[in-house]
């Protein structure tokens, strides 16, 4: 059941989620100004106002992903919260990857933290295991909650139940080595031209992990195609898989042509992509903001980031991921835990968090001045969340295998049909 690509995929997902990352912050610069004071006022209102506010607990605990930058940032924010509300916050370092399992063991026995931190694609598991509380927001909280990125909010819900408060978002974009490729390509045709020009011997014009659905998704589905169909409320239908539609096959043929024309070498993986780009032997690569530090130390000012190019005047749609705070189902302080989550992710604190931990906020009213990050922020506007139903876990492996076969020259229609068939079979034996 393990396969190289699925392992890479999970590594990818985990690292895209677990490592220092990116995301897209201020959805709308126009909305941004003058909101800090507003948020503060609201906070004060809740502390003093309304009678239905439950009594303050003495202490709240939260599990924070055990990365130093993230710990430091959260510690600073927690101190601020204590100052403002008089509630102690205890921070326990706990790898994000293990938190769901930890919560399933500690939650029922009352030892779980009030708040824990999870990527959105775990929502299905968390829902099935009943680990997170359904958020019951007061009107005032609801008002504050409306300023978050819609995609991010939606991806932290499951079957129309809101489980999480989004903190950060991330996606991938096009990195460029300006020595080899001075101008960012506007369209896919331009990109392919550059790729043909630059590729020569062991220098490549355009590289990406093209046997991995996570990165290949935008190229596979430029004119249509999707993973799972959604109804009007955004609920996914695991029986409706759109990865072998005519459009997806069309996209797969394009991907295949990269290998046929030797633009991308056989057996490509993320390590190779990163290695070649760091060595200055790749003009353009597709990767996430988590790689900025590595690439920057290798290429310095020669690195630029731009959005993925257009196809038929439409922007390519990348996958995005959201990470957010979830309230423990078994906590006795649901209201105050929610309050803490909202506090940690409000515009002002999201900004602090971005500066300290380098992750792009999901709050729409944060202003970020960072050239490299701007591309990611733009790209997030043109992205869709990875489906967060548990069935998604059955998609990666067969699809990555299919991409592998496509890269080796097998017929895309045949291979994708097979993959979809396999996904369906896998889903049917899940239970």
């Amino acid at each position, binding site marked *: 059941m*393990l396969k190289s690509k699925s392992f890479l995929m999970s590594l990818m997902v985990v690292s895209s989620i677990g490592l220092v990352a990116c995301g897209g912050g201020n959805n709308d610069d126009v909305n941004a100004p003058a909101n800090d004071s507003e948020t503060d006022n609201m906070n004060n209102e809740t502390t003093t106002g309304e009678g239905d506010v439950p009594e303050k607990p003495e202490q709240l605990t939260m599990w924070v992903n055990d990365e130093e930058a993230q710990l430091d940032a959260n510690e600073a924010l927690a101190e601020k919260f204590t100052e403002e509300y008089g509630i102690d916050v205890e921070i326990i370092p706990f790898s994000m990857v293990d938190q769901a399992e930890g919560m399933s063991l500690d939650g029922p026995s009352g030892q779980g933290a009030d708040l824990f931190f999870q990527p959105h694609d775990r929502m299905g598991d968390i829902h099935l295991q009943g680990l997170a509380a359904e958020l019951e927001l007061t009107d005032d909280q609801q008002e504050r909650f409306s300023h978050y990125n819609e995609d991010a909010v939606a991806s932290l819900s499951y079957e129309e139940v809101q489980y999480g408060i989004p903190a950060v978002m991330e996606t991938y974009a096009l990195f460029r080595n300006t020595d080899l490729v001075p101008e960012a390509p506007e369209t896919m045709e331009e990109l392919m031209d550059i790729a043909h020009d630059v590729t020569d011997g062991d220098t490549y014009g355009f590289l990406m992990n093209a046997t991995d659905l996570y990165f290949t998704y935008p190229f596979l589905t430029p004119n249509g195609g999707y993973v799972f169909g959604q109804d009007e409320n955004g609920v996914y239908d695991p029986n409706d898989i759109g990865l072998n539609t005519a459009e997806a096959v069309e996209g797969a043929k394009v991907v295949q042509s990269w290998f046929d024309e030797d633009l991308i070498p056989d057996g490509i993986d993320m390590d190779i992509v990163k290695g070649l780009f760091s060595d200055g032997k790749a003009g353009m690569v597709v990767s996430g903001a988590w790689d900025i530090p590595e690439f920057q130390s290798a290429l310095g000012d020669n690195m630029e980031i731009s959005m993925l190019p257009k196809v038929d005047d439409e922007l390519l749609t990348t996958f995005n991921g959201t990470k957010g705070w979830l309230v423990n189902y078994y906590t006795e302080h649901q209201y105050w835990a929610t309050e803490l989550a909202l506090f940690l992710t409000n515009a002002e604190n999201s900004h602090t968090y971005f500066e300290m931990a380098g992750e792009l906020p999901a709050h729409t009213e944060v202003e970020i001045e960072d050239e490299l990050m701007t591309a990611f922020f733009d790209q997030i506007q043109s992205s869709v969340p990875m489906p967060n139903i*548990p069935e998604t876990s059955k998609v990666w492996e067969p699809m990555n295998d299919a991409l592998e076969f496509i890269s080796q020259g097998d017929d895309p229609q045949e291979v994708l049909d097979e993959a979809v068939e396999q996904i369906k079979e896998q889903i049917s034996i899940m239970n």
Partner: protein
Amino acid sequence: MARINSQYDQDTLVNPKHNPTVAALLSVIPGLGQMYNKRYVKGAVLFILFAAFVIVMIEFISTGLQGLITLGEVPREDDSRVFLSNGIISLILTVFFLGFYYLNIQDALKDAKRIQLGWKVPNMREGFRNAWDTSFPYLLIAPGLFLLMFVVVFPLLYMIFIAFTNFNLYNAPPREILEWIGFQNFINLFTINEWRNTFVNVLSWTLIWTFVATTLQIALAMFLAVITNDPRLKFKKLIRTVFILPWAVPAFVTIIIFSALFHDTFGAINTQIIIPLFGEGIPWLQNATWTKIALIMIQVWLGFPFIYALFTGVLQGISSDWYEAADIDGASRWQKFRNITFPHLMFATAPLLIMQYSFNFNNFNVIYLFNQGGPAVRGQTAGGSDILISWVFGLTFENQQYNMAAAVSIILGILVATFAFFQFRRSRSFKEEGTF
């Protein structure tokens, strides 16, 4: 006992009124039987111990055992995993309790019989000293045994029990209550096409892998050990050191380096050796057959130094008298190897070699680190080089099919255990100790 029974005759009894059956029956309440035997202190101690155990544990054990049957009733309140573990602990404690209960009755019975035969009840100090003398070794191993119960038996039982529940992603505590579903998981493994195909494919490769990789590494080690043992060879120490080197580097590191070396496009093996020689690279990581060949080569390289060291040691222990005698009889080189060297080597090392086989059967490291069980094979869900253990890993940690993973683990455990059991039994080192 047998000896006592043979003398069991009314006439020789010194205390015919003392009835062993009564002692045994009284012992149904622990301690009473001992008191009937007039060992009051011992009886009192036993009674207090048993009473204490019952008073303290009875509730835990009865709810534990009951929980083991129901696995909880109220979703979200009851955590089936807790019920399961409490149940297993209760089960272990119950077995302990019954064991001591049985010993207690036996003890009363035995003493009563001895009293009938005129045995004097020792006074307290003597009794204590006797007990100390006979049970001292047991006293020493008791804590270890107790610990073993919880460190080894408990997790094993937990795993075995999980295989008979419906514990997967869609049925995960704490939200859901687990249910016993009997052998359904095993039945699914062999009847649902998806499962069966994968299981059979993975199992057959696992067996081939175990057999070929281990046998090759033993053969290579034997060949090299015999060669380097030749008295005419110079620089023995240097050569031996070189052969031991692969053992010195952590396997973890070696495998990852090999994985890079074997890369189809960028790996040194293709770019530096195969392509210059044959003009075209070998798809080491993309073709299942080549991946398997590469894996076997890597395992041979990783595994032979240990066996080589083993063989070298044994070879030096073979007395030269054997060879001299063979020389006088005019034996050929091959005859000497077949009839002297080979039996000696095998006799001394067979148990360790068998362990090599079971080690490779579950050699997760090589498979997982080299290519994560890949490459993909069309129309099959497991990777081309997945062995059972790496498949189980995927089931548990990527697919959260805990029940199926446990079922496969049980089958895996049974396979390894049977194999090892029969091989150990058959190996001459155990059968014919002292032949050589």
